[in-house]
């Protein structure tokens, strides 16, 4: 009985949904604030993401005629559920809900589900902008996903395990994977930017080109869930990167470990924000070219090095 209660508590509060929700809003705020500071502005107050979320929940929910209503209602939930589930396998400060051999694959799969949901949302919501945005999202998915997968395969091969917590734990004594596989980290970082559709890869939702992309026709609750799923995805993606490449919490569950983990996460977030403000948005064909001509070969080289030298 106590096991069930603690399991429920784990999933709902820490490091489950409640914790992720708070983290997502906090990271989103930090990101906006840092971006604003770099641009010479002040940025939103700390409660801003929460206010936005509540306001959207309380707004009217409309869809245009011709949109697939059930799918449009379901897709944001699928997207959110996928990233929340992925989070259960990723150690946070050394603490993980469930871990098994091969959960890295599951995590990667769950993290790419939102991209498909995003594409379908664009395709099914009966607006030209969202259709264009959706097809761009799909093209972009193919450009970043392969290098991203290969970059994350490197550490797994090195450690000899496909479990996120093992990979994270294996670095506690020795070197961070970042130092062993710098190219892999850079590729995974770039892949993450693509995954999160952040500037300079915010191609599917390019404001000045196609409105809000696939989300153009969404409003109210659905939009709130979409935003939340993207914000949670940011958090989960950063956790994953920290665990796989930056040594996680440094082994074990301790206060210093958790603090260290938090600091590393914030550093990755800062890096994401800085990359976001430094560059102009690329065009989808430029991203595809970059993905296949530069990133994929580099990932291949990194993998070969790992297999030949490390393995």
């Amino acid at each position, binding site marked *: 009985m106590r096991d069930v209660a603690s399991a429920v508590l784990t999933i709902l509060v820490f490091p489950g949904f409640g914790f992720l929700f708070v983290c997502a809003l906090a990271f989103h705020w930090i990101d906006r604030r840092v971006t604003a*500071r*770099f*641009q*010479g*502005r*002040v940025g939103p107050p700390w409660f801003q993401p929460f206010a936005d979320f509540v306001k959207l929940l309380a707004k009217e929910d409309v869809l245009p005629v011709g949109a697939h209503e059930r799918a449009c209602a379901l897709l944001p939930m699928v997207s959110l559920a996928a990233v929340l589930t992925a989070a259960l396998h990723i150690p946070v400060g050394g603490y993980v809900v469930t871990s098994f051999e091969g959960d890295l694959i599951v995590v990667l799969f769950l993290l790419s589900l939102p991209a498909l949901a995003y594409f379908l949302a664009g395709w099914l919501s009966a607006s030209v902008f969202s259709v264009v945005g959706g097809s761009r999202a799909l093209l972009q998915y193919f450009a970043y996903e392969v290098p991203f997968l290969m970059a994350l395969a490197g550490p797994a091969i090195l450690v000899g395990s496909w479990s996120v917590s093992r990979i994270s734990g294996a670095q506690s004594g020795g070197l961070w994977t970042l130092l062993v596989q710098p190219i892999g980290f850079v590729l995974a970082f770039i892949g993450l930017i693509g995954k999160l559709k952040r500037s300079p890869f915010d191609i599917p939702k390019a404001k000045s080109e196609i409105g809000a992309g696939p989300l153009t026709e969404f409003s109210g609750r659905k939009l709130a869930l979409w935003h939340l799923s993207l914000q949670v995805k940011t958090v989960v993606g950063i956790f994953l990167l920290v665990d796989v490449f930056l040594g996680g919490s440094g082994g074990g569950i301790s206060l210093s470990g958790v603090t260290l983990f938090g600091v590393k996460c914030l550093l990755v977030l800062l890096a994401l924000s*800085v990359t976001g*403000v*430094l560059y102009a948005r690329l065009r989808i064909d430029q991203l595809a070219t970059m993905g296949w001509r530069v990133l994929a070969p580099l990932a291949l080289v990194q993998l070969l090095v790992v297999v030949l030298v490390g393995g």
Partner: protein
Amino acid sequence: MSRRSSLAHLLPELVRTLFARRATVRFPSEPPVLAEAYRGRGVVHAELCVGCGLCVRDCPAFALELEREGRHRFRLVHFEDRCAYCGQCVDSCRQDAIALVSEFPRASPCRTAFTRVLVTHEASEE
């Protein structure tokens, strides 16, 4: 420019901005900073106004109206919602009675609030 690196070209400016004095005004909590010359609300020195109507004649937006009831009885009405704040009335006035002061007109949910009587001149010397 001596720097030739093409990746992260904006970085020095980012750092400079980060440590520069903040560019943002603290407007709602502090009063706005307006230039002295700013052409905002219209005010009239009622004692100088003779009701000649030159300002009304030259106003490009028909934002001024002179309601005349006799030689020395008139009201000068200003419609802030029509006004272009161009200052033509200031130029046209030969008595220097009208001025645009450095204060922007306030928003209002109701258009009637924009109709302001600038001068009410009752027959005093008659």
